[in-house]
């Protein structure tokens, strides 16, 4: 941390400290517009050239009573001059717009952390709603923090006194005041947000002006008051050059599936039933009518996958999507898809279970359901994105496998990835390899269950193709002809063929790459949304000279061909999972390697520290 004097004419009462990375959490009532303040800060920092990572913390309740604890909504943004992979463990700065927000978020703020509160909201009623016996601003329960009491509401209304807005409208602007203050504190420009305000409220100039005024007021408050002795500057990060946008995992997923349909030249069909946290993907795809995307909001998850299987039979790029409980309902129909061997992608944005569990919280608890949640031997392929932007590429990969191998593929995302966001280097469509649907058309050679020797895939013969009329279904099929068969030897053969086909996919699975040492010491093996924390924790541990390396699985079934060899090369293997050790079990069973687990099932992602501590425990 280096102090520097700013080259500027007018005298600066406040010095500027340069920081590598800062994490801010905006917290307030659902009504306070914290998501908005957070996303605006994110965009501005991105445009300013930082690497960024964010995570919203939206209340489970639809709209809990104003000022209540369950009503608190938060948004955390981390911005840095280095590459970052997570929104940060703990905030450096907490902006608390009311007592409830303070109560629910303070525990995450490290002692010595910067705490900005809207003191105007710390009144009797709000304190009671937040179950505060005494006003924490009055007693010294906060003395461990660098507390700044700002009368945000009052200052905001004063600034907007003659804006011509109603009291309620004025109060709604106070998130902009808080945002402005943070912009000043981290030496940010206001124009990105100013433009956004103008777009958003263009039709309503008064409101637009009000918001801009509040934003400026907050900024100037920081600049002019003597309250803050220092403010900060986080320099540009060195990022891969190119055009970026901020994207959430669910957005990236929707775009990935859309792109896959373009690559295959087949329309995308999405059969789904709304469920948190997967619904966003339905909302996104429903907007893409002009791409020929067909979204079918089914009566339930069974109808959703049924419709997708029907669409796949018809030659569409068929997708169904849900979260854990919905995947359970799709179990039987996934078995049908395994038997009829049609391309199908099943998206599961995992949430905390079992049962309804905690719908808005994240988890990796559906892996074994994805692997085994069906009657009989019914293997499917499984892929899992590692980051929000990775969802785009893995979504395409899912369809690539599904179409090439004529098989259901489960796309295993989670709430943390789906709702979290990060910068996305916008890809160039023309560089992406096409997907070949390779429909059967030749009656002379057509046999419904004859297989491509290279992939073991059967032909995709869609209705409307002359002289390929045939019948498929859920009863066991005779090899080659696809007729119904109860023959004992045939069944044993088909069971093994279906398994072998999934194993064949390994030829398209890139070998597992290790970041760090290619052998010796500890290997931290992860899959899915733990990528960010594992990468960061391992980098830090290595920086401290620890002999530890990291590897990450994107293909969960089949696993990379070299996984066994890789595991053998290390003294120990650690597998952090947001479950009780589901992938660990699969790896142990397959390779008989004594993989150690780090498991946390709290509905929250791991913190970098949690992984670092475990590493320290294992390699000292």
């Amino acid at each position, binding site marked *: 941390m280096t102090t520097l004097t700013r080259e500027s004419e007018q005298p600066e009462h406040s010095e500027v400290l340069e920081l590598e990375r800062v994490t801010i959490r905006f917290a307030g009532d659902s009504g306070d517009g914290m998501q908005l303040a957070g996303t605006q800060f994110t965009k501005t920092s991105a445009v300013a050239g930082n690497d960024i990572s964010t995570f919203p913390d939206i209340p489970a309740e639809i709209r809990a009573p104003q000022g209540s604890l369950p009503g608190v909504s938060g948004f955390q943004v981390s911005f840095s001059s280095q590459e970052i992979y997570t929104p940060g463990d703990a905030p450096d700065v907490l902006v608390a717009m009311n007592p409830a927000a303070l109560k629910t978020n303070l525990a995450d703020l490290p002692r010595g952390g910067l705490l900005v509160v809207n003191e105007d909201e710390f009144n009797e009623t709000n304190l009671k709603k937040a179950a505060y016996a005494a006003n924490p601003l009055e007693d010294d329960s906060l003395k461990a923090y660098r507390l700044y009491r700002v009368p945000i509401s009052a200052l905001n209304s004063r600034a907007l006194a003659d804006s011509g807005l109603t009291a309620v409208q004025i109060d709604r602007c106070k998130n902009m005041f808080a945002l402005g203050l943070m912009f000043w504190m981290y030496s940010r420009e206001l124009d990105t947000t100013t433009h956004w305000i103008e777009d958003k409220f263009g039709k309503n100039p008064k409101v637009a002006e009000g918001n801009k005024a509040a934003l400026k007021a907050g900024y100037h408050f920081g600049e002019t008051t003597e309250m803050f002795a220092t403010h900060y500057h986080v320099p540009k990060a060195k990022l891969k050059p190119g055009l970026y946008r901020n994207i959430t995992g669910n957005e990236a997923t929707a775009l990935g599936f859309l792109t896959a349909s373009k690559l295959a030249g087949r329309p995308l069909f999405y059969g789904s039933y709304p469920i948190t946290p997967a619904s966003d993907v339905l909302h996104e795809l429903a907007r893409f009518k002009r791409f020929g995307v067909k979204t*079918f909001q089914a009566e339930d998850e069974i109808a959703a996958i049924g419709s997708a299987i029907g669409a796949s039979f*018809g030659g569409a790029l068929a997708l169904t999507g849900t979260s854990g409980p919905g995947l359970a309902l799709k179990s039987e129909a996934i078995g049908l898809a395994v038997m009829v061997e049609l391309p199908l992608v099943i998206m599961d944005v995992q949430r905390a279970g079992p049962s309804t569990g905690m719908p808005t919280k994240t988890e990796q608890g559906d892996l074994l359901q994805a692997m085994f949640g069906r009657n009989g031997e019914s293997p499917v392929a499984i892929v899992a994105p590692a980051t929000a932007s990775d969802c785009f590429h893995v979504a395409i990969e899912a369809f690539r496998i599904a179409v090439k191998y004529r098989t259901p593929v489960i796309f295993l995302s989670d709430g943390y990835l789906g709702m979290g966001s990060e910068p996305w280097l916008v890809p160039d469509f023309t560089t992406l390899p096409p997907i070949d649907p390779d429909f059967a058309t030749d009656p002379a050679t057509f046999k419904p269950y004859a297989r491509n020797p290279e992939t073991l895939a059967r032909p995709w013969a869609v209705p409307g193709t*002359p002289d390929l009329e045939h*019948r498929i279904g859920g009863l066991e099929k005779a090899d080659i002809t696809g007729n119904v068969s109860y023959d004992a030897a045939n069944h044993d053969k088909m069971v093994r063929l279906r398994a072998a086909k999934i194993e064949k996919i390994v030829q398209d699975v890139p070998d597992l790459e290790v970041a760090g040492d290619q052998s010796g010491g500890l290997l931290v093996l992860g899959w899915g949304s733990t990528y960010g924390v594992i990468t960061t924790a391992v980098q830090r541990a290595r920086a401290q000279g620890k002999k530890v390396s990291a590897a990450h699985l994107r293909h969960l079934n089949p696993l990379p061909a070299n996984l066994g060899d890789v595991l053998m090369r290390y003294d120990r293997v650690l597998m952090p999972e947001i479950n009780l050790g589901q992938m660990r079990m699969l790896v142990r069973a397959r390779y008989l390697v004594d993989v150690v687990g780090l498991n946390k099932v709290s509905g929250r992602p791991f913190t970098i520290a949690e992984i670092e501590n475990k590493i320290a425990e294992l390699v000292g």
Partner: protein
Amino acid sequence: MVTAKRGEPVGVLSRKDFVSDQEVRWCPGCGDYSILAQTQKVMPELGIPRENIVFISGIGCSSRLPYYMNTYGFHSIHGRAATIASGLKAARPELSVWVTTGDGDALSIGGNHLLHVLRRNVDLQIVLHNNEIYGLTKGQYSPTSEFGKRTKSSPYGTIDRPLQPLSVAIGAEATFVARSIDADAHHLVATLERAYKHRGASFVEVFQNCNIFNDGAFAEFTAKEVRADRTIVLEHGKPMIFGKERDKGIRLNGTKLEVVQLGNGVTETDLLVHDEQRDDPSIAFMLSRMQWPECPVALGVLRAVDRPTYDTLMTEQIEHAIAAEGEGDLKDIFLEGDTWTVE
């Protein structure tokens, strides 16, 4: 992939062209044989290329029908045929998609999908083989089995009150509702043809005899000798007359349907005239409730109203979107929201 307009003949296909190479495997004497035969007979009449026809079924004896049709076919899982058919039709509106189902498949495990495929008015032909029993699983009662019926699973008689398939369909906003009998080849063919001609979800209940587990379930009113007196074949625009002697009729007396004897004062003009196109489904609902011995059982088309179909609406939305916003370009979507460049 070929598309054809309804009714316009394509090549010259015959019944035999629709017989698959699979050996038919129903119990000798099963009513399903006739339904299959009539279905194969009606196909050439429709004038669609064979490759554009798809039969989709769930599980049950009835649901094996697709194997015996030399068209595209999908023998899916229990109760879900309507969902697969909906997805296929939405994806490929030019296909003629038929759903074959049973009283258990459509009304027990598949009841919800039936409700929704009907309300959405997906352009399908749904043929329910109603034998008032679970045949394939060897004789448990079904949602249409009569109250008190003793079966393997109800040795003391059922305590579930049966559903009326047509009432359920009308309650679910069905746009086409009809009923026929396995044994009446001529009427069945005509009804299947009407179902096909209707744009939208066509729901046809066929009384089907399961001679093994529920023999004669409908004989009381479908037996040749009594059929004319115990059933009424509805005809659009015609007064409701029935009886071997065509001497009986149906009258709406205030809020009630009643059977009247024609003659001495009662004339055709007193009778209810069948209007299958009534916007309000309530009279069709009334007709769906007619039961022997109080009333003759209604056969034929009870309701046929024209409504936009789900699949065409879906296609139109896409066409309109493209017309209004232009063909989608990935770049526009990729670049939504704020972007920034890193040099």
